[in-house]
């Protein structure tokens, strides 16, 4: 737990330099200022702006940020005294559910008036009031219009467009095993089109694409650099690049989905009043407006804020009112990890093999096509398997629990073996190995 700093108000510093006269009497708030310790995984562009704005709004508090990736947050918060953390603020829905189950959170000490708590089919606030969404992010396609014009390609409007042979070699897909935002991206078409059709669609899309991992370059880098025409992405990376001058567009497909980030107060918060102030600020009109900064570009959860945002700012609530955003994030939250792992086994690792098969499939006669197509597009497993709670827990806990890792790995190997067998049969039909 962080030690609270004892002000040394009578400190006298003899300043040798010409500029500083240290030791002036401290302002009154300095003696009473208390820390608010926030655990987060937000980047500096987000943290520094909220830090400055919060401390300006609440000068009696000082924000102390402890940074932890989502997969490393739980061990930190399971320490004695919850590591002295007052507030957990991050985009990791599954972690919040787990913390709530462990009774590690206290009920939110703020009212949620003006916060709808859901976007279309996605419930973004905890129904029991232990955590609330602080922002959401959408998914879609980063598009380089100049690239598409040069290649004579249309701007894709929905997932099915990406499966067209014309897009072969022009797509970029984030590897969901490596890129944190991508598992939900993978799950959106699986829910929208159904399990079987969704995997078939992904197979055709992957055949057109190359993958980007976590090497440090982003989809927006690659698309902006003209190295691909279309990149699948979470929206804010691309929206920020566009807001800062990149000549790109971002297309929200008709079948969309959102992923919320949340804020919660820890049960053992050493400074509950400060935690309350921070949560109130995050959810306030002023706090929500910060999300529209060109370096952030996330989607506010307070609909009233959108009226004051730049023209064309994506409003997921308005889209949901028109019937969009049917994605069920509650279902997706549990199965995101096994779905991503399956995707990795059947698509990412054998991508070159799969792309070759699709090239031959697209050139095949109708009779061969009808036999081979199912072999390239079959789901890696039954949908019930990834919806199984024990399977989901194995993937969620695999980093911390050797038994869970063994179970998860066995499933991966099984999915991979089944896919490889299908691909081998397809090669027998289509030729080439």
């Amino acid at each position: 737990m962080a030690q609270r700093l004892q002000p040394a108000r009578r400190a006298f510093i003899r300043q040798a330099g010409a500029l500083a006269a240290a030791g002036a009497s401290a302002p009154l708030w300095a003696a009473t200022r208390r820390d608010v310790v926030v655990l987060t995984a937000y980047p500096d562009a987000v943290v520094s702006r909220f830090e400055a704005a919060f401390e300006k709004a609440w000068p009696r508090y000082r924000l102390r940020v402890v940074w932890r990736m989502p997969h490393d947050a739980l061990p930190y918060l399971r320490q004695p005294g919850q590591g002295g953390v007052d507030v957990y603020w991050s985009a990791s829905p599954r972690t919040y559910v787990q913390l709530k189950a462990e009774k590690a959170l206290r009920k939110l000490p703020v009212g949620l008036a003006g916060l709808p708590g859901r976007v279309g089919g996605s419930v973004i606030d905890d129904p029991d009031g232990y955590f609330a969404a602080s922002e959401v992010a959408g998914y879609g396609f980063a598009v380089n219009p100049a690239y598409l014009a040069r290649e004579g390609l249309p701007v894709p409007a929905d997932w099915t467009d990406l499966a067209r042979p014309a897009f072969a070699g022009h797509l970029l897909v984030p590897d969901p095993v490596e890129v944190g935002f991508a598992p939900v991206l993978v799950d959106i078409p699986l829910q929208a089109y159904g399990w079987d059709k969704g995997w078939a669609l992904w197979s055709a899309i992957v055949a057109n694409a190359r993958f980007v991992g976590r090497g440090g370059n982003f989809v927006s880098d690659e698309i902006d650099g003209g190295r691909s025409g279309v990149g699948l992405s979470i929206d804010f990376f691309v929206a920020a690049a566009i807001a800062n001058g990149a000549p790109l567009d971002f297309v929200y497909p008709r079948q969309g989905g959102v992923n919320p980030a949340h804020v919660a107060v820890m049960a053992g918060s050493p400074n509950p009043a400060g935690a309350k102030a921070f949560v109130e600020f995050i959810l306030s009109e002023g706090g929500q407006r910060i999300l529209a900064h060109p370096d952030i570009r996330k989607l506010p959860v307070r609909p009233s804020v959108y009226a004051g945002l730049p023209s064309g700012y994506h409003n997921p609530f308005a889209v949901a009112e028109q019937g969009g955003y049917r994605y069920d994030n509650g279902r997706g939250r549990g199965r995101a990890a096994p779905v991503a792992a399956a995707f990795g086994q059947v698509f990412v690792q054998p991508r070159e093999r799969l792309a070759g098969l699709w090239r031959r499939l697209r050139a095949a006669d109708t009779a061969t096509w009808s036999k081979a197509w199912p072999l390239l597009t079959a789901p890696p497993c039954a949908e019930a398997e990834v919806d199984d709670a024990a399977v989901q827990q194995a993937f969620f806990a695999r980093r911390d629990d050797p038994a869970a890792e063994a179970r998860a790995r066995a499933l991966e190997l099984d999915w991979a073996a089944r896919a490889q067998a299908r691909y081998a049969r397809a090669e027998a039909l289509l030729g080439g190995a």
Partner: protein
Amino acid sequence: MGGLLMRLVLAGLVGCLSPGVAGGEARVLSWQVADAGREAFSRPLADLTEAERERFFRGRSLFNQSWVVAPAKDDRLDGLGPLYNRLACVSCHARNGRGLPPEGQGERMQSMLLRLSVAGVGSHGGARAHPVYGEQFNEEAIPGVTPEGRAELRWIEVRRRLPDGSLVSLRRPRLSFPELGYGAMGPVRISPRVGQQVVGMGLLDAVSDATLEALAAEAKPDGVKGRVNRIGSEPPELGRFGHKANMSSLRAQIAGAFLGDLGITSTLHPQENCTPAQAACRRAPRGGEPELDDAQLDDVEFYLAHLAVPARRDMRAPQVRQGESLFAAAGCVTCHRPALRTGDSSRFPRLAGLDIAPYTDLLIHDMGPGLSDGRPDFQASGREWRTPPLWGIGLTRRITERERYLHDGRARNLTEAILWHGGEAAAARRRFEALARPRREALVAFLESL
């Protein structure tokens, strides 16, 4: 102006100020990027190979990475602190641009830090660290360790009337310490510094020692001297980076900032930044030996070395051309050198042998009492500061969202920055002050084209 034009002719400077111009047409050179947007300081050199691009992006990730308290599952990224200023390199160089000082009372130093020292010379030949608070005031600490406190900065306005009757308001900082974690400081020298823009550092790193020595040895007008800050003693290295040129190489600058700002050790700085008086700091868990391994340091160095410099804008606009002539005629180019050539860079061959336009001589100059921080650093006195590069300076407002210049961000625009010039730069400043307002504006327009 006749006298000024004559100075130009005599100096032979007309026509050689702009490496970005050939035959009257602007062109983008290999070390430049044609981007005037908010990504202008974030672009790689255009001709990187695929492997180099991967390395560039790995370095960028590390530069942008928020570091975590050890121990952590992310064992490549743990080891923050125990004492530190900010979580990430980018915290002080947002969008690779300049840092900003606090503006209002109680506002924290988000991209500014305080260098500390006491009288005397340290074991490494540089400033002698404060025995309790060390070389840098760290306002943050990991849980279980007491932060060093909180500094507060207020601005004192100073009015100055120019020869044409214009009244300008300048400001100087005044520091206080409303909170101190380890007791009173006693006698101490304090120097507030904002983060510097980081483009073009590889090119400056590639300027040879011989070039720096030759620049220092040149006879210069107006009483300008300029000298190399020599670092260490066996043998001394020539300083290039830092506000007082107290770092000899880009690699040293990076490793020094990792330790001082983030508390991240490296092979160049294997010891944590804890003083003997900071017991909890010394006991705190470490994130590795060292915390930033050499491969990571290589990647960050590669990234910063290969950031392209934004190409100039509006070069042929009459006002800009006039300002460029006035910049030279006022004598600014004596220190803000418009043309340097890189040497044979052994680390990054593609940076070797290039004609660059950094508008710096990398030398330290006496800038007068108004800018003195009273804190010597190796051979640099309190009044001496390295000539800052001016390339990209015209994009400051766009990238940083506010204009703040000079080592402590006191100048709120380029005119204020010029008016703070004293010492060896006093003659150039007086020539600027003597210009009619439209000519002063033309000179600033030229700077904004850089």
